[in-house]
């Protein structure tokens, strides 16, 4: 595989994870500081199965997603009713705990060395296909009653509950779904890089996703996706040292946060343009009758 294909594949994998971060942070306002650990879970489930048995990719994918969702349920259940800062703390602790566990279970997970020799089954096309399916999933979720309920919960929990929305359930649902999607991205990561090691999934990775979502515009799915692309491509294009890249990325984040607080996209979505045009063209007359 050529270098560029490798880079693009890894961007695709990260974008899947960023979509889950958008669901959590952008749509529902849940601050998960340990989201990378779900990627870790997915990657390890895949790594452990794929190096031991010759199973089809689909099986590993499904098992990874399930593992992510179960863990998310386990973490989410006790803390979802707590204050938002506390959710940040619990998820952060969970992330550290998972990494520590994997580091210590030498005989199963390879400890600090990680797992190598995972068959390379994900190429760019597979990655793109899964990314597009995930985007469709998130778009449909956002445009359904679930998406509206998430935004309502993010904006005002008490008012949302007064509308009959089960706030805790909505939050838990999103947390579990996001856990599943992030774990799926972990599975893709394992299959595309052929190795996993625990230290790749620390807090910094999560913070990286959070800032990506903010730069794109916390309220915009399109924004999150585009900024994920920018942050993936830009450092590769500029060819700095790894610390240089991080510094560059930090500077961009600080500039955007200070001068474009709504992010690059604000609340706009690519799909909205068509809706607005359609609304202008059809001009429903009934709408105007109520007001004299």
């Amino acid at each position, binding site marked *: 595989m050529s270098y560029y294909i490798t880079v693009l594949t890894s961007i695709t994998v990260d974008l899947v994870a960023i979509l889950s971060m958008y669901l959590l942070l952008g749509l529902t306002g849940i601050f998960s500081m340990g989201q990378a650990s779900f990627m870790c879970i997915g990657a390890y489930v895949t790594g452990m199965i794929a190096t031991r048995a010759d199973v089809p990719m689909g099986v590993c994918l499904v098992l990874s997603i399930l593992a992510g969702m179960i863990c998310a349920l386990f973490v989410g259940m006790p803390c979802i009713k707590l204050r938002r800062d506390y959710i940040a703390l619990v998820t952060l602790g969970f992330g550290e705990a998972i990494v520590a566990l994997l580091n210590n279970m030498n005989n199963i997970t390879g400890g600090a060395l990680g797992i190598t020799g995972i068959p390379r089954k994900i190429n760019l096309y597979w990655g793109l296909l899964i990314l597009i399916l995930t985007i469709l999933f998130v778009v449909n979720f956002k445009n359904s009653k679930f998406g509206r309920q998430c935004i309502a919960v993010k904006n005002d929990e008490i008012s949302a509950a007064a509308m009959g929305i089960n706030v805790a359930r909505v939050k838990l649902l999103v947390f579990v779904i996001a856990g599943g999607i992030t774990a799926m991205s972990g599975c893709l990561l394992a299959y595309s890089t052929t190795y996993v090691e625990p230290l790749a999934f620390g807090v*910094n990775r999560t913070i990286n996703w959070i800032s990506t979502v903010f730069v794109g515009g916390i309220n915009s799915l399109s924004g999150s996706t585009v900024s994920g692309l920018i942050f993936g491509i830009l450092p590769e294009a500029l060819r700095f040292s790894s610390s240089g890249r*991080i510094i560059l990325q930090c500077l961009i984040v600080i500039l955007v*946060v200070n001068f474009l607080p709504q992010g690059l996209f604000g609340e706009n979505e690519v799909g909205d343009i068509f809706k607005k045009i359609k609304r202008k063209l059809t001009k429903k007359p009934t709408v105007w009758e109520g007001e004299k």
Partner: protein
Amino acid sequence: MPAISLYYRLPALHSYKRLKGESHMYYIQLLINGISLGSVYSVIAIGFTLIFSILKFSNFSHGGVMVVSAYFGYVLSTKLNLGFFPTLLMVSVFGALVAVVVQYIGFDRIRKSDGNVMLLFVSSATLGTLLQNIIVITFSSTYYSYPKFFTTSFVKIGNFTVGVTDLMMLVFSTICIVVLMYVLYKTRLGISIRALSMDANTTQLMGINASFVIAVTFMISGCLAGVAGMFLGISYSLYPQLNALVFKGMIASILGGLGNISGALYGGLLLGVAEVFLTNFVGASLMPVFTFLFSIIFLLVRPQGISGKFTLEKV
């Protein structure tokens, strides 16, 4: 981005011998070590909480300020051969300056435009990472050690051995906390800070210059970050990922009851003691698992934190 592994390097801190046969003595020894580690966590947690209480966001740039100050102290003590006390003084002043610069670059504009609190958080996390990576570029990722400031490394108090560094940590952390409490509760400035943390709008109506008070609060917080950073550098050895120890401060301050200064103090001590005991019984490498379980159980049992009070949201 390089991953963070706090727990890898923890055990170096506690070089105590088992007090054979006298198990209760041994526990007391552990307790002493726990408290001195906890006192540093308290200093981090208080610096963190100060900012949380006035601006209502988790200030992760605090870790960055700690790292930068710790390296500054290293340069002073090795290149200029400064002793312990002058270094500590310079480091705390330096920390205060860095914190003010950080607040000016990262938070001033967002705060004045009444932005989302989450923006402040993202800005602070980014600045923390930025400072950490500036250190990586200047000093590379290798480990440095502070020079030995004291000729003896242990003192015996009765039957207990206490590391001089541990003792210094305990003493200076206590001094910092006492001074801070005095400032907060007995001076005009302290009253302004506390007023601002309770109700920003009314405080400004009362003629208090919020920007000034916020800048000063950042200075105090930076000062504490400097002190904590230097102690961490001395006892852990110096590396850029020291930044991540700000999470200990965050955990401590939440355990103590978010936004509550004395809560942060207790939270830090509790966390320090819990960590030392856990390290001893389950090993340092599995500690995060237990810290996680501990914090979940703690929050379920006492969601308001140690000294927090339940506040009903006004509807």
